[in-house]
């Protein structure tokens, strides 16, 4: 792009189309574009720009949509976890921890499932049987058996996930539905399996 001042040596017809006050009569341009032709050019230019913008937006949208596949090869979010009597009262059960990252805890009243994701930054805490607490190795957050946080940087309790009894008498745990204590969601019947 060269600098083109309006007073450059180009003939009038080659000048960039910018709105300028009409030239004084003394400096009469050699060629005058007829109003009709100018309108035609402007309208086609508008159309071209709109078409260009639309196609660019479409291309960008296509690229963005491309990043979200229709099929995911991830483990299913809900799984069957055996029968309630398979779990000992007062114990934190770690049998599904490896595969689904969920602890199943049975109390006198019933069963709940805690998600093994630290509420600080998403590391995986461990259940320490001797100390009766969940402890996160990353930054030392600690949680009681209920999931309530009591030490370290974690700002809120561990999340519970949906748990219910299936038709075949087996526990069904659905990790896609989470319940947060600080939002009062642990009162939701779906977050606790009453026995």
């Amino acid at each position, binding site marked *: 792009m060269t600098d083109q001042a309006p007073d450059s040596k180009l003939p009038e017809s080659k000048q960039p189309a910018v709105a300028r006050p009409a030239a004084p009569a003394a400096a009469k341009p050699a060629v005058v574009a007829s109003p009709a032709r100018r309108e035609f050019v402007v309208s086609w230019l508008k159309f071209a720009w709109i078409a260009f913008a639309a196609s660019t937006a479409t291309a960008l949208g296509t690229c963005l949509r491309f*990043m979200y*596949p229709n099929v995911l090869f*991830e483990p299913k979010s809900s799984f069957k976890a055996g029968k309630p009597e398979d779990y000992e009262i007062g114990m934190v059960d770690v049998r599904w921890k490896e595969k689904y990252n969920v602890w199943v805890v049975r109390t006198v009243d019933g069963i709940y499932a805690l998600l093994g994701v630290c509420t600080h*930054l998403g590391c995986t805490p461990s259940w320490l049987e001797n100390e009766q607490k969940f402890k996160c190795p*990353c930054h030392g957050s600690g949680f009681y058996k209920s999931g309530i946080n009591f030490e370290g940087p974690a700002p809120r309790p561990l999340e519970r996930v949906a748990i219910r009894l299936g038709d075949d008498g087996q526990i069904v745990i659905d990790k896609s539905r989470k319940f947060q204590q600080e939002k009062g969601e642990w009162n939701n019947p779906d977050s606790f399996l009453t026995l």
Partner: protein
Amino acid sequence: MKTQVGKSMFRHGYSDDDRDRAMTVLTNVFFHLHPVKVRKSGARFGFTWCAGGLSFFVFLTLVVSGILLMFYYRPTVEYAYNDIIAMREHVPFGIMRELHRWGAHAMIITVWLHMFRVFMTGSYKPPREFNWVIGVILLVLTMLLSFTGYLLPWDQLAMWAITVGSNMARATPFLGHEGPGAALLKLGDIQLIHSGSDVRFALLGGHFVGEAALLRFYILHCVAIPVAVVILMAVHFWRIRKDGGISAPL
């Protein structure tokens, strides 16, 4: 040099006269990356710390060592970790992997020092404001290169670093499904931004750091971000020349 092939490469002879000798250098991109005239201050180590030049040099070593690593590294859950370990044992000069790793740390340091020097010497002032902005983008891209490369060894450190890092993306305003304003974006009662459609998902290709995340980070680390960095570097260096060379002490 007298043949047509020689002339096509070097457009000036080299021995005819002083002018041709000078033009041989001046018309060659490799001989003439540096400007003809440099301010005395611009060549003073105490003023520039060579930090920008060092950043570029380290980047070049990273490109070379990185390309070499790509001949042995396979970005899959099955192979990634073992390929990195194997590089130490099965490959002559397996130290290339160490060179790449330490070079990455060095580049973060040199780029940061370069920014610090430019700031402290006031070299961001007009007419160089635009180049400062380009530089800030380059700093961010350097850190993104570091972040994406972090996952590739596929060990515990990598897994958790990226898990923690990508969890921050959840909280992006409007674009992360746990971020402020994301809940406002809905059509009727359909949420537009959820854990399967937010910015974190686009980065990981899934709901957690897994197979898809490893592949995406590999592509970003080896192709996408380097391309952006090379283009911006070209602009950055060109602007230095256009803005009157390395700035002088105030």
